[in-house]
């Protein structure tokens, strides 16, 4: 009888331990999913590289975008390219120097939230400052199916000088000659 009780106790402990481990694994997985979702939702989560020195007034970059389908990801990538020029700056490459952000002040986005909400709205003014240079839908390694959608990389020409002038004219960025 005693042996039987002891065996039962062991079984219960084993079940409890297994349950505990499974719950923590599920929680950890959910946490990872949440983090991943959060990082995908964050606008700062994109990769951009300068490909070469663009023709006068433009920047030639490769930028990545993530969305549920390829078309939306391409659109997001274009938006990311304009976002990088305004807030993040473009990294340098072997033959092109780094490009500083048009608005290097970290508070610019917060201080002009309404302006940028309108600027980056679907079909908003941002579209006028980007040219897609990849013909057709990205394929091969530039089109990756990931959990929750697609991640695509496209080559984009950003009309950097025009974008800068627009932000200067709207009073968001400071003109070099202002004050003189």
């Amino acid at each position, binding site marked *: 009888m005693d042996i039987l009780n002891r065996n039962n106790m062991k079984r219960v402990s084993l079940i409890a331990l297994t349950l505990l481990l499974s719950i923590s694994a599920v929680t950890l997985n959910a946490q990872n999913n949440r983090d991943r979702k959060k990082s995908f939702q964050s606008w700062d989560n994109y990769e951009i590289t300068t490909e070469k020195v663009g*023709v*006068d007034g433009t920047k030639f970059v490769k930028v990545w975008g993530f969305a549920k389908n390829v078309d939306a990801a391409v659109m997001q990538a274009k938006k990311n390219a304009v976002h990088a020029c305004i807030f993040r700056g473009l990294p340098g490459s072997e*033959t*092109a*120097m780094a*490009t*500083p952000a048009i608005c290097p002040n970290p508070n610019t986005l917060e201080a002009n939230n309404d302006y940028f909400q309108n600027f980056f709205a679907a079909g908003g003014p941002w579209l006028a400052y980007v040219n897609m240079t990849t013909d057709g839908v990205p394929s091969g390694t530039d089109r990756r199916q990931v959990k929750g959608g697609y991640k695509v990389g496209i080559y984009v020409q950003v009309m950097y000088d025009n974008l800068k002038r627009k932000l200067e004219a709207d009073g968001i960025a400071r003109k070099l000659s202002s004050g*003189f």
Partner: protein
Amino acid sequence: MKKSLVIAALLLACSITGWSQAKKPTIMVVPSDSFCERNGYVQQVNAMGASSTVADYSRAMKENSDIRTLVSAMGDFMAKNDFPIQSLEQELKRLQTEDAELAMMTGKSGGEINETPLERLRRSAKADIILDLDYEVHRVGPRKQVSFNLQAIDAYSSKLISGNTGVSSDASAPMTTLLEECVLSFKDNFLSDLQHYFDDLFANGREISVTLLCYDNCPIDFEEEFEVNGESYELAEIIEAWMADNTVEGRFSTQAKSANRIRFNQVRIPLYARNMNGRDVAIDAEAFVRPLVRMLKKKPYSLVVGSSPRGLGDVWITIGDK
């Protein structure tokens, strides 16, 4: 009625603010000394028996078309930013013409234009910000690659505002294309550094240097003591106290101080000051020291004082003579 009055007052305030524009620094692209030396654009100068070589900018600009390409490309983007740069080539030509005209100029009664040797020396091409440019062409097999170095230097403080180095892509394209690629590569970084420099200028004032010199016929020197508020102070101390009171947040450094010479550097001056008509105007180094000059002319100092500007950001004050 009240509303329209408020709007009118606001518009007036805006227009008054609009008049107060800081003095715009001049910018000039100058080939670096090492570039001139490497390419033989130098001339031998004999100064008091000691021979030395100096850069011959005039020859460099005339004989090297690549420099012209670079200057044109830089001039273009600066003009687009409402900041046209001064042309070194044109400035050198203007000085030559000015020399010739001054030599020929006589008044109706036969008088000639006065010019001291110092005035003649100072009549040279200069700018407030110097863009020191250097580049070298490298051969990569049949292709060419250009490495460049552009430094923007504050002419008065000798501080580096922006430093840009890099290489173009290696290609068999014409030199003009490679040079333009270089300019486009550093353009935005350079403009950003310049903007940072101007932001600092507006926030903390213009950085200037002030040098006080004593002529040998001056009856006193900077160690002479004067009574201020019942206490005896050296003239140098009194001048330092004036600097502390009139600079932005009292920022200045006394670089050198002796009986005959005082030099202040890293002097931060406000961009605007009130003129004799009580109006806010943009000031430079010379306008900044005018009140000091007036103070030294008055009792108890009663000195003969002169001031001579050496550009927007450097001024010499002489005591004992003008």
